[in-house]
C-alpha cells in the first residue's frame, strides 16, 4: 500500500489530487459518484475517490487543475478528514454493514456512507465500472485508518496532516491575522480596554508564568487600584485561583466580570477583604453576582442532549430505526437541546438587561468558571456589542472568553477518547445560541451562517492549537517547550521556527487561519455580501463619563452585593464569605424579592427593554448598543437546520439541485450592484469630464453619514469614517485625543476582504470602503472613483 503511494508522494496525483506535502495516497477508486448536499447544489458529482493518511478526498472529474503554487489547503471542498469520520457504512446489493477495522466484507459495496462527527453524512456511489477490488479496498482502507480512538491515532493523524517538513515550514511562516485581537499579550487586552472605553482597569501580568493559577490566562484585567502584590493574595480565595476578571464594559458603564466560586474554608484577613472587595467592585458601588452554577445545564446534560439530537437528526443506522415524521417534533423536544439553548440565551439576556442599567459590576460565577461562564459571557457580548458580530470581533471574543480563558476544549471535545466523562459540546451549544441570534436578526450580523458552520466543523478536527489544549498554559508549553522562561513581548508572536525534530509534535495552527482549511470561495461566504447599515458612532452618553467620575469618589464605602439567581435578586448573608459575619445590617429589609415577581420579573424587564426601543428618538433607530434580545418562546427557538439536518438522511436524499442554479437573491443583487459600479467606474474613467456631476449625484446617498458626523464630532473625516467602519465604534471618544492611533488599532478594522478575494461582492457600498483608502489619503471625490476599480481588478 505504501509503495503505491510513494509514486505520488510529491505533488499531484495523476488523477488530480493535490496532495499536501508528505501526504500519501493509500488507496483510490475511480468512477465514483458523490452525492451532493442541498447546500452544495444537490445532485451527483462523478470523480475519483482517494484515501490518504489524512483524509478521504474526492476529486471531481472535470475539476479545474489546482494551481500548483497555491498555498496548500488542508481539505478540499469535497474532502473529509479521517479524524472527523465517525462511522463507515458499506451498502451492498442486499445489505448494509457497519465496517470496522477488523470485520470482513462479504460483498462488494455499491455505496459507501461516511458518518462524520460534525453531523455531515457523505455518500459515495461506486459504479459498475469501478473495479470491485478498488471498491472493497478503499472501504477497508478507510475503515482501518479513520479510527481516532487512541491518542496514537490522533498523533499519526496530526502528523499526516502537518508533520512533514514542508508543512511545518509552511505553517511557521504563516502570518497571524492582524485584524483580530488575539488577546494573548497585554497589548491585546489594552486594546480591548481601549475599545470598550473601560477606565479604571489595568492589565496585570501577575500570572505571567501561570504561578498564581494554572488555568487562567497570562494576563488578566483587574482594577487599577489593586497592586500586583495585593492581587496575589486574592487568588487563594477562589476555586482554582480564578479570581474575578474583567471581560467587557457596557457602554453605559457597567462592567462584566467572571469568576469561579469562593473558597470557603479560608481565613480572610482584613487586607485580603479590602482587596477582594476592590477586585469584585471595580470602581462601582453595586455588584450583582449572577449564579450560573445551579440553573444552567451541566456539561453532562449538554452531552446527553447532544447525543440525543445526533440520534434524532442522523438516525441510528445500526438499529435502522428512525423517528416517524409525526413524532419528530416531540422527539426533538425531548432531546432538551433547544431547552438548553433557550436557557443560555435567557441568562445572557438577563445579564444584558442588568448591564443596561449601568454603573455596576455584573459578575458571572460558576464553580469552575470554565464552561457556562464562557457561554454566557460571550453571548452577552454578542448581544450587546456590534463589534462581536463581525468575523474579526467574534474571533477575538472566542479568543478572549474561551481559548485564553481556559475552557477545557481538549477534555470537552475529547479527541483522545480519554475523558469520556468530561466530554460535552459546550462550545457547540454556544455556537447554536449564536446561530439562534443570527437567525432572528440576520441583518445585524456581519458574519454569516456559513461562518458559524465552518467553525462548528473545525471543532471536530484535532488540528488546531485553539482546541487542543485545556488552558493557555498547556498551549504555551506545547508550542514553546520553555513555558517558564520566555515571555513574548509583542502580540504578533509566531509559532517558533525551531521546532524540535520530533515527528510526533507538529506545530498546530490556530483555527482562525481559515485559508488553511477553506478555499477562498468558501471564505467569501463568511461575511455578509451587504455590509451592515452604517450606524453612526453613538453619541457618547454623557452620563457615562460624569457618573464614572462620581462613582470614583466613594471608594471607602463597601458596595452592596446582590445575587441574581433564578431570575430573582436576593441578598443572602453568606454571599460573600468574608462578609458573612457582619452583613445583613444594611439590607435586612430586602432579604427576599416578592415571590410574585420571581418568575417573569426579568422577562418583563427584558420585554420592557425591547419595547422601549422604538419609542426612543427616531434618529437612533439602530442604536448599535441596544442589545439584540432573543425571543425565547416556543416558536422562536428553532433547529439549526443547515447544521444538524444537513446530514440527515431525508435531508440528504431529498437534496435538490437548487442552490447551485440560484444564488440567494441578496447575493445576486449584491453582485449586480458590484457589476454596475464597475461599469460606472469604467465609464467615469473614460469620460472624466462627467465625473464631477456624477459625484454630486451620489453624494447624498453615500456621504450623508460622514457629513453628519463631521458636524457632531471634531474629528477629521478620515478618522470618523474609520471609526464608523469599525462598526463597534466604542464609546471611547473622550479618550481618543490622548491615545494616539497605533498601527495595530488601524489594522484591527474588520476585514472587508478587499484585497484577498477580489471575486465576490466586496465593493458594495462605496462609502463603506472609502475609509480604507481614506487612511492613506484624504478621500477626495475623484480619488474615490478611481480607487474602486483599481482595487477590484
Amino acid at each position: 500500500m505504501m509503495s503505491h503511494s510513494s509514486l505520488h508522494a510529491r505533488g499531484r496525483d495523476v488523477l488530480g489530487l493535490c496532495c499536501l506535502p508528505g501526504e500519501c495516497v493509500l488507496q483510490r477508486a475511480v468512477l465514483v459518484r458523490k452525492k451532493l448536499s442541498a447546500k452544495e447544489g444537490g445532485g451527483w458529482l462523478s470523480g475519483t475517490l482517494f484515501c490518504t493518511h489524512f483524509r478521504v478526498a474526492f476529486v471531481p472529474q472535470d475539476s479545474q487543475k489546482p494551481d500548483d503554487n497555491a498555498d496548500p489547503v488542508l481539505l478540499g471542498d469535497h474532502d473529509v478528514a479521517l479524524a472527523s469520520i465517525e462511522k463507515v457504512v458499506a451498502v451492498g446489493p442486499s445489505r448494509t454493514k457497519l465496517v470496522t477495522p477488523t470485520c470482513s466484507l462479504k460483498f462488494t459495496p455499491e455505496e459507501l456512507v461516511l458518518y462524520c462527527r460534525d453531523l455531515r453524512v457523505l455518500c459515495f456511489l461506486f459504479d459498475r465500472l469501478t473495479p470491485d477490488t478498488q471498491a472493497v479496498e478503499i472501504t477497508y482502507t478507510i475503515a482501518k485508518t479513520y479510527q481516532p480512538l487512541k491518542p496514537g491515532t490522533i498523533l499519526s493523524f496530526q502528523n499526516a496532516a502537518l508533520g512533514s517538513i514542508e508543512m511545518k515550514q509552511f505553517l511557521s511562516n504563516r502570518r497571524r491575522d492582524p485584524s483580530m485581537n488575539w488577546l494573548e499579550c497585554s497589548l491585546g487586552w489594552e486594546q480591548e480596554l481601549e475599545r470598550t472605553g473601560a477606565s479604571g482597569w489595568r492589565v496585570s501580568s501577575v500570572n505571567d508564568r501561570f504561578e498564581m493559577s494554572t488555568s487562567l490566562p497570562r494576563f488578566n484585567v483587574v482594577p487599577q487600584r489593586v497592586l500586583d502584590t495585593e492581587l496575589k493574595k486574592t487568588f487563594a480565595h477562589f476555586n482554582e485561583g480564578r479570581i474575578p476578571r474583567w471581560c467587557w464594559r457596557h457602554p453605559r458603564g457597567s462592567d462584566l466580570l467572571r469568576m469561579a466560586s469562593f473558597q470557603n474554608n479560608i481565613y480572610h484577613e482584613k487586607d485580603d477583604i479590602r482587596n477582594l472587595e476592590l477586585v469584585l467592585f471595580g470602581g462601582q458601588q453595586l455588584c450583582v453576582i449572577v449564579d450560573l452554577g445551579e440553573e444552567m445545564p451541566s456539561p453532562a446534560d449538554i452531552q446527553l442532549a447532544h447525543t440525543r439530537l445526533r440520534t434524532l437528526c442522523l438516525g441510528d443506522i445500526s438499529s435502522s430505526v428512525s423517528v416517524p415524521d409525526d413524532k419528530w417534533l416531540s422527539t426533538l423536544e425531548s432531546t432538551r437541546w433547544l431547552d438548553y439553548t433557550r436557557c443560555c440565551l435567557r441568562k445572557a439576556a438577563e445579564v444584558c438587561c442588568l448591564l443596561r442599567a449601568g454603573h455596576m459590576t455584573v459578575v458571572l460565577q460558576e464553580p469552575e468558571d470554565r464552561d457556562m461562564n464562557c457561554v454566557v459571557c460571550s453571548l452577552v457580548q454578542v448581544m450587546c456589542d456590534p463589534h462581536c458580530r463581525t468575523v474579526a470581533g467574534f474571533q477575538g471574543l472566542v479568543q478572549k472568553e474561551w481559548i485564553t480563558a481556559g475552557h477545557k476544549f481538549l477534555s470537552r471535545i475529547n479527541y483522545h477518547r480519554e475523558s469520556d466523562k468530561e466530554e460535552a459540546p459546550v462550545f457547540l451549544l454556544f455556537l447554536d445560541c449564536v446561530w439562534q441570534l443570527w437567525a432572528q436578526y440576520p441583518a445585524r450580523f456581519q458574519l454569516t451562517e456559513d461562518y458559524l458552520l465552518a467553525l462548528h466543523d473545525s471543532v471536530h478536527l484535532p488540528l488546531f492549537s485553539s482546541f487542543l489544549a485545556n488552558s493557555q498554559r498547556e498551549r504555551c508549553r506545547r508550542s514553546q517547550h520553555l513555558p517558564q522562561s520566555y515571555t513574548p513581548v509583542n502580540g504578533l508572536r509566531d509559532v517558533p521556527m525551531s521546532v524540535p525534530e520530533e515527528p510526533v509534535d507538529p506545530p498546530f495552527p490556530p483555527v482562525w487561519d481559515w485559508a488553511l482549511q477553506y478555499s477562498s470561495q468558501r471564505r467569501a461566504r463568511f461575511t455578509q455580501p451587504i455590509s451592515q447599515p452604517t450606524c453612526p458612532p453613538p453619541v457618547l452618553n454623557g452620563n457615562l463619563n460624569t457618573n464614572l467620575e462620581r462613582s470614583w469618589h466613594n471608594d471607602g464605602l463597601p458596595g452592596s452585593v446582590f445575587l441574581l439567581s433564578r431570575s430573582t435578586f436576593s441578598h443572602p448573608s453568606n454571599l460573600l464569605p468574608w462578609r458573612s459575619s457582619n452583613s445583613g445590617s444594611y439590607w435586612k429589609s430586602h432579604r427576599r424579592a416578592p415571590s410574585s415577581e420571581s418568575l417573569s420579573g426579568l422577562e418583563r424587564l427584558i420585554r420592557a427593554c425591547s419595547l422601549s426601543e422604538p419609542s426612543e428618538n427616531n434618529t437612533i433607530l439602530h442604536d448599535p448598543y441596544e442589545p439584540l434580545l432573543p425571543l425565547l418562546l416556543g416558536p422562536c427557538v428553532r433547529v439549526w437546520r443547515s447544521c444538524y439536518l444537513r446530514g440527515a438522511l431525508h435531508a440528504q436524499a431529498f437534496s435538490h439541485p437548487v442552490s447551485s442554479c440560484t444564488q440567494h437573491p441578496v447575493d445576486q443583487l449584491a453582485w449586480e450592484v458590484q457589476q454596475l459600479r464597475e461599469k460606472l467606474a469604467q465609464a467615469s474613467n473614460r469620460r472624466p469630464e462627467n465625473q464631477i456631476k456624477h459625484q454630486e449625484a451620489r453624494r447624498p446617498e453615500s456621504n450623508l453619514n460622514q457629513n453628519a458626523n463631521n458636524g457632531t464630532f471634531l474629528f477629521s473625516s478620515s478618522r470618523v469614517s474609520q471609526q464608523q467602519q469599525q462598526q463597534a465604534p466604542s464609546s471611547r471618544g473622550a479618550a481618543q485625543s490622548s491615545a494616539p492611533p497605533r498601527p495595530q488599532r488601524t489594522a484591527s478594522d474588520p476585514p472587508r476582504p478587499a484585497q484577498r478575494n477580489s471575486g465576490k461582492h466586496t465593493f458594495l457600498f462605496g462609502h463603506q470602503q472609502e475609509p480604507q483608502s481614506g487612511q492613506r489619503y484624504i478621500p477626495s471625490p475623484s480619488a474615490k472613483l478611481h480607487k474602486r476599480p483599481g482595487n477590484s481588478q
Partner: protein
Amino acid sequence: MLSLGSGGAKSSKPSFVSYVTPEEIKLEKDPQKKEKHPDLLPGEVVFCSANPILKYTQDDLSQRGVFGTLLCTNFRVAFISDDAPQEEMSKTFKNKLYGENDIPLMCVDHIYGVYDEKRKLITGGLVKNKCPSKMIIHCKDLRVFQFCLTFSKEEDAKRIFQGIAHHCLEEKSLKCVFAFSYLRSTNPDHGKSSRKCITRLDSKSEMLRKREAIMFDSPEDWTQEMKRTKAQCRLVTENENFELSQRLPQYFVIPSALGDLFNYQGKGLPIWCWSHHSGCALFKASFPSMTQEDGDFQSHLDTMITAVARNYLYSVKTEDLSESLPTLQDIQQSYNKFKQYFLIDNTTDFWLSDVKWFSSLESSGWLDIIRQCLQKAVEVVECLEKDNTNVLITEEEGTDLCCVISSLAQIMLDPYYRTLMGFQSLVQKEWVAGCHAFLDRCNHLHQKDKECHSPVFLLFLECVWQLVQQHSPAFQFSETYLTVLSDSVHVPIFSTFLFNSAHHRESVMKAESPIAQSRPLSCPTVWDWSVQFDSKAQNFFFNPLYSEKVKHERTVRRPHKHKHQRQLSLPSSAFKTPTKKGFFKDETDSLKKMLRVKRISRWMGSPDSPVVASKEFYESWQQRPLDYHGLLLPSLDGPSVRVWMQRYLRWIPEVHIMGGGSVAIMTKLMELLSQVEDLKRVLEQRDPSLATQPDHPPPLHHRLPSFGSSGRLSSSFPFTYSRNRSFKPIIPTGLMQSLMVADNLANQEDETS
C-alpha cells in the same frame, strides 16, 4: 367613505332585512355619539354601542388598556379609541373594510365572559344571565380582544354584551349577512335593468382587463382552460339552469366518452379538473359509499370509471379520499386544538408553554393532516406524471377533500397556477365553481349543527403555504397573500365564500334581487382586492423573489451539467423501464436500497405501500435539477412541515422580532434593488451604450412592496408594525429599585417613557 365599483358611495337609507328593533336603530341617530362612529360602510348600521369600554392591550400583564366606545353593527364589532385618532403611521397595509380594532361578525369565533375571575364560554344560555365583567373575543383570524365592561353603565354594558353575543353567536339566516345590505346600498340603481346589464358587463370587462381571475362561470372560460391544457373532453352546458343537478356547477367538463348519463343527481359523474400534457387527466367525482346494494347504480359507476379510462390509454386509477384521509370532523377537531396554542389571552401562560411547545403542536395533529394531504397530492401527481394514467379522485360529496387534493396536484404540476392570477383562477375553478360548501364549512351562519363545519379551505391554504415555504421563488404570490386570503374568508362581503354551491348562489341572488325578473345582483368577489386594499398594499401580495420564466437565464445560471438531467416532463416510458445500460447504474435502485435500510421502520409492514412508491418518485424527481417552472413536489418529512408563522403568530407581540426576521432580509433586498435602479439610471445618463448589459441577470422583482424606511419593522410585518405604544417597563420593584442609584432610575425612566 369608500367608493366601490359601479355603485358609488351614497349610502342610502337602510333597506335591509333586520331583526333589530327600531329603538336600537334610533340609538345610532343619537347626535352626541355621532362622532364616535367609525366610517360606516354603505349599508352598515349600528345596532348598539357602549362607552366607556376598556380594551386591554394584549401584551400587557398589568391589565393596562385603552378607553373607547364599543359598537356592534350589522357588519362588525368595532372599538373606537377615545384617544386622539392615532397618527396614521406608516400603515401601508390597511384594510379598507375594517380596521385593526374591528371584528367582522363572521370572524368572531368564540366569546368568553369573565365572571368573578372565571372564564366561561358564552353560549346561548349564558347571554341572558348577568353581564360579565370582562369579555374576551377570539377571532377566526386568531386575534384576541379583551374588553372590560365594568366602566360603562350597567344597562349599556348589558346591551352591548347581549347585542354582540346575539349577533355573533346566534344562528341567523343568510339574508342577514351583511353582504346583502352592502350590495343594495352599493347598487342603488337597481331599477334600471338595462343600465345594470351594462355595469355588469363593465365590471366584467374591467375584471378581464385587470386579469384578476378567470371566473369559470361561462362556457368560454372552460373552453379556454381546456384549450390551455389541451384536454380532450366535453363541455356540458345542459346544467345551465340546474336541471340536471343542484350540486353541480352550471358548466362543467366530463370525459368525452361519456354519453348522456345524467342520472342519480350527477352522483358519480367524473368532473374534469386538469389535463396533463401527455393526455391523461385528473377527474373528481362524488362517490357515495358502496353500501347500497343497488346493481344499477353500481353499473352506473362502472360506466363512469370506464369513461374516465377511455380518456387516455384506457387506464384509470381511482382513489377514495374518504378512506385514506382524515374525516372532516377530524380536521375540525385537530384545527380547534391547534389554534388554541395561538389564541393567547394570558401571556404568562404563553411564557410557560414553551417547554412543551413542540409536543403540544404535535399532539394536535394538524401538521400531520397537512402532511397527509400533501402526501396524497404527491401520489396523484405521480400517477399523472410518471404512470400517465388518468386519475379519478372520489369522495362522498366530491367537494371537500377532492378540492384540496386536486388543487394541490394542479399547483404542483402546472406553473400557471403558481402565479397570482392562476392561483385565483384555480380557487375559482375548483372551489367556487366546483361547489365547495363554503357557507357550511366555514359556519358563517353560526349553525349549531357541528357536523358540517370544517376548515377545509384553510387546510388547502396551509398546504399551499408549505409549498410556498419550501420553494418560494416558484410562486408569484407571497405568504402575505395567503394570509390575507385566509382572513378574507370571514369578511361577509364577498360572494366567493358565501354560498354552498353555484345553484345556491344563483337562487339566493335571484331571490335577494329586488326585482325578480332582473338579473341577479353582482357581488364583489374576493379577487377584487381593491375593495380591501389599495394598490400599494396589494404589492405585498407579490413575491419579490419570484423567478419569472426566462429562457436564457436558466442556461446561464446552471454551472453543473448533470448527467441525468432529464426533460421536464418525461415520456411515459422513462420512468417505467429504468435504463440499466447506462454508464451508471440507475440511481433510484441504490437510493431505494439506502432508504429501505435507513427508514425501514416506516414501511416495514407493507413494503409496497404507496409511501415507498411515492418516495421513489420523489427521489427521481429530486435528481433532476429543480425547475421552478416545472413539477414541484413538497418535502414531507418531520422537520419540513412547519407552522405557518405569519398567520398564527402575527398577533402575538411576544414573538415578534424587532428589526429581525425575514423582513430584515427583505428590506435589505429592497435597499439593494433600489440601489441597482439608481446605479442603472446614473449609468444610463453617463453612457447609454453601457446601459444594456448582456450578462445582466433578469430583474428579480415583480412589484416592489414599499417598506417604510423609517421605523423598525417587526417580524410580523406587515400585519403589525413596530409597537410604538408607550410602555412603561415593569422593572421588578423592591430589590431592583434599591439596586439602582436614584439618578439611574431617573435615566431609566427617561429612556423608556
